[in-house]
């Protein structure tokens, strides 16, 4: 069996970038901007793989993503996994019904995901937590959603570049979409 090195390289780069950005979000951002809510960098990659990858690959990346992000929060890894899977499935459902690709579509999907995130978080917390969220930090989530959408464009370019160097034509867009 041929080992898909390029595919693995692309995946590794994406996960590495996620860890890097999560560290930046939790450490550097608060050193510079204090309490001002940061963009949700982890969400951008989740959206990217949800709209550019087939379901099986997206699911695999969500597992890796959950493992990569869990150390940065008190939210338990299993709850993270369910939360990310729910988000990914939601994005997948939207993609099945509307898909045209490109950065604009990506930013739109990031916006949708950013706004859905607190609702799903609330639901997941209700499902898993003994002391669940009563009211999410709405203001923080909203600011984060706006910032995430803005930051998603440069990150889209970056992930797209990973796809190219990993010999996966942007294609990703070409080979996905409503199947």
């Amino acid at each position, binding site marked *: 069996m041929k080992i898909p090195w390029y595919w693995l390289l692309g995946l590794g780069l994406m996960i590495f970038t996620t860890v890097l950005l999560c560290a930046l*979000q*939790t450490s550097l951002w608060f050193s510079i901007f204090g309490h001002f809510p940061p963009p949700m960098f982890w969400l951008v990659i989740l959206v990217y793989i949800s709209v550019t990858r087939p379901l099986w690959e997206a699911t695999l990346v969500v597992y890796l993503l959950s493992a990569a*992000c869990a150390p940065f*929060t*008190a*939210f338990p890894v299993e709850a993270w996994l369910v939360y990310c899977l729910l988000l990914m499935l939601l994005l997948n459902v939207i993609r099945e019904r509307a898909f045209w690709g490109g950065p604009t579509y990506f930013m739109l999907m990031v916006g949708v995901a950013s706004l859905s995130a607190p609702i799903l978080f609330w639901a997941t*917390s209700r499902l898993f937590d003994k002391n*669940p*969220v009563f009211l*999410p930090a709405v203001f923080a989530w909203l600011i984060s959603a706006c910032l995430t959408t803005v930051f998603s464009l440069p990150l889209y370019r970056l992930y797209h570049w990973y796809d190219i160097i990993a010999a996966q034509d942007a294609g990703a867009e070409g080979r996905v979409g409503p199947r």
Partner: protein
Amino acid sequence: MNFFTFDLRKIFLVIALVIVPLIAINMQRKSEEEMWFTKPFTFAGALLQRGFSGLSSGVRGTTALYLDLIGVKRQNDELKAQLAELNAQLGAMTELKLENERMAKILGFQQASKMNLLAARVIARDLLPDHSTITVDRGLKHGIQKHMAALTIGGVVGYTFRVENDTSQILLLADRYAVIDAIVQRSRARGLAEGDGAAGSKLRDLKRSDDVKVGDLVVTSGLSNIFPKGFPIGTVTAIDKTRYGVTQEVGVRPAVDALNLEELFIVLNANHEDLSPGGED
């Protein structure tokens, strides 16, 4: 041509070249007296001289001013740079002074306490806005273990819940997952301080009959020797007694604004310290 033939041109010439100068030389005129016919020229000359002088000095002044401005601009730039540098130094000095004051307080607290404390610096926060955790720059290799208390001079911060070699994550009191055994200092009523997800916490499992008032201080119970006994957790802000329940729920405002912390202590061993009034210390 006969010499005595009148030639008017010659006469004027002789007068102008010889006679007038001779007369003028021989006139007994005081040298300082000005002739009437020179006065207009003197006036005009003076006026023009002043004009030219003014123009000259104006041009020279403008040129000098311009040249000065170049110098001033350069000097201004230099002074601005110096000011910026001094401001930066002042900022750094102020920061150092504040840090020094903080450290002095911390050191004083550490020395006065019989607890085994480890100072740590906050380096990161939680990834999600609905969780309140912080990461500090001390971990396993500094002697930290899971479920060790984190506190400051002002009160309880939380406790460690994930410890790595060089870092530890602390669950803040305000986090929904945080639970600390607590007592109301005045009445000794016992309950569990639990984060409410926002910036506050609540005291649950208090009996309905327990004596609690708004403003009461909630302190640690000292159970399990994780926290010192009688250390401030927060102040009672609200009391909710349901109509038929057997318990009451009490809102507590934490004594420490943990999200603004820069340094804190990890309690490596509380040594059964009792900080409550009338306690051993």
